């Protein structure tokens, strides 16, 4: 099967396919951006402070945070996403407060060297694609890119919610006739969530196969993410389990941790 792609290929070569998933997220993104801004403010973020959004995807959060008056820099590996983000930015008439560029998260420290931000955000399970050591390195780079009072928000899936509620299959239908089948498995030896995405075109009652993507990433429980943050020099301050700011528990899908520099 020549059309099986890994995560990076998915973002780069098949960016347009993944774009659909991002755009599905667009509707909630304003609420999410407001929650992020509220969390940052609660922990001393200055009014209109600067935010690094890495990776930013199609800019769902970057754009809304800029609209809320923050200066935002977004980076993403995928030129397709950055182009898309620029499209939204023009549509919504966002001014100079938003800067978008293509770049690799693993190299973020170099890319934005000498640009201290008031906060960095890492959204939508954007850790865990390589290994724990790479995650630690990314978090350390954020540490180097933020001011002395800098804050960090990491938003990932809550492993304990998956332990309790993971269902082995999910189905998504897109407006353009694409149907996505997601086959899911949690690997208990590695703590990786292993996903196989089958994309089909709906033709009448038939599903014509378009492509397959295999994705795996490390998922963290709260105590693990706190340990990882601490080992990268961050001091976890508060954690919530949703963008409605509910407490973390296995009943909540997300793990959103706010940290300050230790």
């Amino acid at each position, binding site marked *: 099967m020549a059309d099986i792609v890994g995560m990076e290929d998915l973002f780069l070569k098949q960016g347009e396919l993944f774009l659909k998933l991002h755009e599905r997220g667009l509707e909630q993104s304003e609420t999410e951006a407001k929650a992020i801004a509220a969390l940052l403010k609660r922990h001393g973020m200055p009014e209109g402070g600067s935010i690094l959004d890495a990776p930013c995807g199609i800019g769902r959060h970057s754009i809304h945070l800029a609209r809320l008056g923050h200066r935002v820099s977004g980076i993403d590996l995928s030129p397709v996403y950055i182009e898309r983000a620029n499209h939204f930015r023009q549509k919504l008439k966002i001014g100079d407060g938003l800067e978008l560029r293509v770049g690799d998260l693993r190299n973020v420290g170099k890319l934005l060297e000498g640009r201290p931000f008031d906060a960095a955000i890492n959204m939508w399970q954007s850790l865990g694609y390589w290994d724990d050591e790479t995650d630690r390195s990314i978090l350390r780079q954020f540490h180097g890119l933020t001011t002395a009072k800098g804050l960090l928000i990491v938003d990932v899936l809550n492993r*304990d919610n998956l332990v*309790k509620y993971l269902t082995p299959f999910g189905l998504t239908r897109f407006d353009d006739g694409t149907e996505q089948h997601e086959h899911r498995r*949690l690997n*208990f030896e*590695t703590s990786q969530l292993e996903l196989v995405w089958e994309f089909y075109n709906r033709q009448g009652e038939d599903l014509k196969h378009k492509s397959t993507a295999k994705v795996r990433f490390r998922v963290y429980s709260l105590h693990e993410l706190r340990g990882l943050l601490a080992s990268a020099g961050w001091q976890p301050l508060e*954690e919530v389990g949703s963008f409605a700011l509910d407490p973390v528990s*296995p009943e909540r899908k997300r793990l959103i941790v706010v940290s300050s520099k230790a």
Partner: protein
Amino acid sequence: MAAAHWTDQLFLEHSDIFVRIHEAALDRAERQARGVATILERGSVRPPAAILDAPCGIGRHDVHLEKLGYRVTGVDFSPAFLERARRLAVETGVSPEFLQADLREIERTLSDRERSFSAILNLWTSLGYWSEETDRDILRQFHRLAAPGGLLVVDTINRDWLVRNFRPHGYEEWGDLVHVEERTFDFRTSWILGPWRFYTRRDRDLIHKATMSVDHRAYAGHELRVLAESAGWHPEALFGGFDMAALTAESPRLVLVARKDERS
């Protein structure tokens, strides 16, 4: 003055209570020991290999492993448990060796036994009582006590089963001994916290015997694997129990099998 650590309270001060809990587990000990033996044999550790069981409690696995032909050394820090273990050995007609030592200082107690055990067992959730660092240190001491190519078998509660099946309260009784457990799952640390209360039933009353805060770190499979690795072991398998079933979030138990390098 700080209160005594719960392990001192439960295993020394109130050892009579915990001997009864051990005894309640006696009837499944033979089946469990056979499961352990199958795991050992799968790892090429066969009778009459020397095995260390630490902590051994009242020796309920040791007597059966000895019966199967292994030469077993059981170590525990509770004199009351060891006394019961020696009686159990007489009752069973075998004679494992039983020694008193604190798990945290086991290497010092067995200083003349370095590199001598073909397998080391740590059963019934006997890690996670102090800190992750202490656990790593215990596993490092085990590593030095193990013969080259020796096996480590750790059996503990599976954190992920707890995530799915956590209950804040527990109740058990053994004859007139009543045990009421209140538990909190601290997700920030992955520790299970909470008071255990013991009572003696007298008619319809429960007469309080003892209360202690039994707190322990609960590990998920991948965490135990990484912990053993960081102590020098090479993990070979993770099972959901002594029956060697696949580990899932439905497995109440977590069994790690790891090996010491042949050349170390």
